[in-house]
């Protein structure tokens, strides 16, 4: 939304041999052919326009507008020199769009001015300070309560909880080396032992460990395994005997 007063570039004074006055007047005269485009010393105009006077700062809106205008003038002059006709009949669509834009800007202008009024209001109202309660001011904690009740409440919080019991975790398990020893012992006495017999007094984990022990013996070449039917009993035969 172009601000209504961002026309600083347009009102800037220019001083060239051909013309002295505000930029927008020059532009109007050029567009109406009242100043001959071919006579226009473009370089002078540009130098005159974009050389910042004293130490004033460039405002980005004004500067970009100015540069756009200068580019447009350069373009126009270029066309004119090449003998092109720049006069077009007005485009109806463009006219309608422009009217719509004008209507919108006119409708919006009061709010822009109201914003300026608000800005002045804000500056004027900056001084006074108001009482403020810091956010989250809590109700004070009562301190004169019965100490015994406080103590009872505190004790509940600091009481150590009972150490967790592991009794329900079941029987102690025999470790792998022990199971391995037991298997070797059996094989020393018998030529062949049944896996099912070996694990008859074991739980599932020990059963698995016994199988591991048997496999370990196979790996070391101490035993061979044989299973006649899938999922059937496994016969463990010692190879030393």
């Amino acid at each position, binding site marked *: 939304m172009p601000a209504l007063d961002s026309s600083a570039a347009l009102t800037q004074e220019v001083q060239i041999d051909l013309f002295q006055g505000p930029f927008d007047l020059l*532009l109007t005269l050029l567009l109406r052919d009242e100043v001959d485009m071919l006579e226009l010393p473009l370089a002078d105009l540009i130098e005159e326009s974009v050389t910042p006077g004293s130490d004033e700062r460039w405002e980005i809106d004004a500067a970009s507008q100015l540069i756009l205008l200068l580019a447009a003038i350069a373009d126009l002059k270029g066309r004119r020199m090449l003998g*092109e006709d720049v006069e077009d009949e007005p485009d109806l669509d463009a006219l309608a769009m422009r009217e719509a834009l004008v209507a919108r800007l*006119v409708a919006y202008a009061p709010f822009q001015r109201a914003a300026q009024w608000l800005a002045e209001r804000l500056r004027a109202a900056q001084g006074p300070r108001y*009482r403020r309660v810091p956010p989250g001011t809590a109700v004070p904690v009562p301190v004169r309560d019965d100490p015994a009740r406080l103590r009872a409440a505190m004790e509940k919080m600091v009481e150590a909880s009972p150490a967790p019991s592991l009794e329900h975790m079941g029987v102690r398990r025999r470790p792998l080396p022990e199971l391995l020893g037991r298997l070797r012992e059996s094989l020393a006495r018998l030529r062949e032992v049944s896996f099912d017999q070996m694990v008859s007094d074991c739980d599932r984990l020990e059963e698995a460990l016994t199988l591991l022990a048997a496999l370990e013996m196979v790996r070391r070449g101490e035993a061979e395994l044989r299973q006649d039917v899938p999922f059937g009993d496994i016969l463990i035969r010692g190879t030393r005997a």
Partner: protein
Amino acid sequence: MTALARTIEALLFIAPEPLEVATLQDITEESPAMIARALDEIAARHAADTGLELAEVAGGWALRTRADLAPACDRLRARPREDRLSPAALETLAVVAYLEPVTRREVGRLRGVDVDSTVGSLLDRGLIEEAERPQSGPVTYRTTTLFLERFGLARRGDLPTLERFELTGPEAQALRARLQQADLIAEAETGDG
């Protein structure tokens, strides 16, 4: 000082925010006319050479410090650095202040640009808030008590009429002429033969 004026002065002294006349009425059980007279009395008592002033602001009455004492007050209480509102934020605020309660869409349509981030920053700053949610339909926004305080407005809608800010005939005409000029330039620019 009358007893009522003393009472109201005390209430204003301890109140964390501006007190509405209705609240003063509830507490003191006095008529609005009596309360108005008491407020006059308090205002007169806090003349220009005292540290406090009585102000009608944000829909109520407040005892506040005088503007020239701001530096000392701010040394006691760190005041957040005055964040400057951008022109876009001020214009959006103006639209909300005049049209409240107003939807984001309506604001955007008037402004002609997307206003989501501007509305968001105004919400963050506490200058606008969601108005009461309608049963159905989009959220609407309105200005806050903080907005009224910051801008020194006595109450919601304490603004000059919008008509006052409308463009006059010649101004609108000038605007049209300027756009025409811009169009001619744009045509010359894009009309590559």
